[in-house]
């Protein structure tokens, strides 16, 4: 369906990534946010707090991130489209509720504007060191989707995509920004509402008698009902059967946990988005995401000018990781060069997926700034030998 024009600020804007993310949420139909202040993410909810009473919806500033990350889920079950926004320390506090959203299949979006860590780290400076936490941070086995924008325009476009994916798969989607993308101001074009595709809630059309809250009919994603509609359903974080009732048998656990994993893993080709360049003739592929992809671009262009056969693979979807894409590429290329603002996170996935078929050079950075393109260029040269 098309976006409700009420929340769409159609036009050309000169805004930062945090504000663009907020506009993306509003365009996607988000009418609820719960947050807790934390640098460098707060501008997202500050804008939402200013905008939402003029378009219809609610913002509430909660007492901590534990509250913020579950309040939004209550809102979703009350019929809202909801999200929360945070950065490293707050993201850590939200982990239990990412698991709850995964287990209860609550569609929602968690925005993490990454800053340097661990702990309080570098509150005002960038990092990309929460990538593994986004995937594995909550206990138990589950799958999530994570997107990485590299510009304010993408903060707008991909926030809509994040909401759409969360509705389609009934899964919490991690929106993995970084401080630079969040605070970078660029032109953002917001199209008219009738050009914005919005995925509606997968709401059941079944009668109260026929409705099974966690019945799947073979397509892996159950239909949802909201509180107050007469379905009188039960939602629990305990292992549950198709009725939503707690059931502690090994068979129920196996069926549920595998479905939660497989509904995402099995759709990786549908979910995975990347930007590629010069992959046809590449000997070396630079793999990057977020702000690092823009630094890497300069190194790639310089390497091409020198005649090196280097290609670009930018991960727009970080999770689920597009293993097959890498497996195929590994058959043709010599090496992958992975610059990232951490000490090696997504590079581990590249290594795992390529399984020794090509070399992986990770260019690490402890965070607080971005790479020097020269440094990336040097590694490209080395990898090309």
């Amino acid at each position, binding site marked *: 369906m098309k976006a409700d024009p009420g929340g769409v600020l159609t036009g050309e804007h000169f805004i930062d990534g945090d504000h663009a993310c907020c506009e993306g949420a509003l365009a996607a139909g988000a009418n609820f946010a719960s947050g807790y202040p934390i640098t460098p993410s707060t501008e997202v909810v500050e804008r939402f707090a200013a905008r939402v009473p*003029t378009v219809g919806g609610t913002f509430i500033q909660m*007492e901590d991130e534990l509250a913020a990350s*579950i309040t939004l889920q209550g809102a979703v*079950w009350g019929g809202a489209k909801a999200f929360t926004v945070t950065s490293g320390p707050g993201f850590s506090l939200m982990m239990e509720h990412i698991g709850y959203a995964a287990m209860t299949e609550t569609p929602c979006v968690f925005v993490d504007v990454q800053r340097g860590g661990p702990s309080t780290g570098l509150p005002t400076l960038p990092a990309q060191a929460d990538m593994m936490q986004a995937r594995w941070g909550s206990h138990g086995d589950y799958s999530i989707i994570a997107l990485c924008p590299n510009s304010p325009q993408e903060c707008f476009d991909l926030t809509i995509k994040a909401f759409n994916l969360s509705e389609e798969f009934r899964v919490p989607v991690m929106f993995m920004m970084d401080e630079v993308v969040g605070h970078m101001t660029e032109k953002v074009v917001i199209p008219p509402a009738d050009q914005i595709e919005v995925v509606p809630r997968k709401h059941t059309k079944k009668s109260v008698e026929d409705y099974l809250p966690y019945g799947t009919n073979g397509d892996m994603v159950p239909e949802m009902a909201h509180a*107050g*509609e007469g379905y009188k359903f039960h939602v629990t974080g305990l292992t549950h059967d198709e009725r939503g009732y707690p059931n502690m048998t090994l068979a129920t656990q196996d069926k549920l946990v595998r479905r939660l994993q497989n509904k995402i893993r099995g759709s990786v080709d549908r979910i995975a988005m990347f930007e590629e360049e010069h992959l046809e003739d590449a000997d070396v592929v630079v793999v990057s995401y977020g702000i690092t992809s823009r630094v890497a671009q300069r190194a790639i262009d310089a390497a091409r000018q020198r005649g090196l056969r280097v290609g670009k693979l930018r991960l727009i979807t970080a999770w689920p990781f597009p293993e097959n894409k890498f497996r195929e590429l590994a058959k043709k290329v010599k090496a992958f060069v992975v610059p990232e603002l951490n000490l090696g996170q997504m590079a581990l996935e590249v290594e795992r997926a390529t399984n020794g078929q090509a070399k992986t050079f990770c260019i690490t950075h402890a965070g607080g700034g971005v790479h020097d393109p020269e440094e990336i260029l040097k590694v490209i040269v080395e990898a090309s030998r």
Partner: protein
Amino acid sequence: MSTDLNTDLINPVESFLRTDRMPHIWCPGCGIGTTVNSFARALIGSKIDLDSLALVSGIGCTGRVAGYVKLDSFHTTHGRAIPFATGLKLANPKLNVVVYSGDGDLSAIGGNHLIHAARRNIDLKVICVNNLIYAMTGGQTAPTTPDHATTSTNPYGTFEPAFNLPHLVEAAGAVYVARWTTFHVRQLARSISEAFQKKGFSFIEVISPCPTLYQRRNKLGDSLDTMKYYKEKSKVRNGAPTKEVGLTMSGEIVVGKFVDCDRPDYQAMMRAQYVHSLGEKFVELPYEEEEAETVCS
């Protein structure tokens, strides 16, 4: 009068329960089921539309209530029933939202949310079953464990002062505060009915036995002995200053309605502020207006 025996035999509260989930997990002599019975009777008495009633629990023995009531019911995470319920209520103001959980869940791990929801005066009915202990996990000390009671984590007796929950929530801003024991089933049902008439943060504490872990370990007898204790030592003092209603292990239990006042709830205050600041730019959410003056009795 009906002569259909089958109809006559149905317990009046049965239609509120997920009978397909029985038997429940609570121990013999546990008071939680008794509180659910009072809750169901309050619903019958208040003629609440069950389609618009949602119940939210946290984790623990009382946290399992959500699984047994035939309502839209949410068994959330430990301590977070109140913030979940806050989101539910704000997203759909037409819902009546009940939070039904235990003392450890609501006042320890969830203590911050308890006081902030009371401060904001979110329109929630909180039923706190206080068995003075962490029961689900085996009888550890709770913030409510009184005196020098013996627990699995204070095997030589507790020495931390306990929370006086009515005093805490009144100070934080609750508009309705009552306490009963599981001996006071009718009074409890009446208080729950009254809370449904209130707009704002209501808190009902129910003192309830845990014969398996609290009574037994402290040599307080079985549940029948506890009922006798509740009967003999409870003193109804409606309007008692909450500062004076702290609990001891075997002393008097002050019960009754302690606080019943009115002040605008969160959504009324939010709306008023937006109307004041934004005027015609404010896009109204579906909301049934009910002006509340600030009055305390």
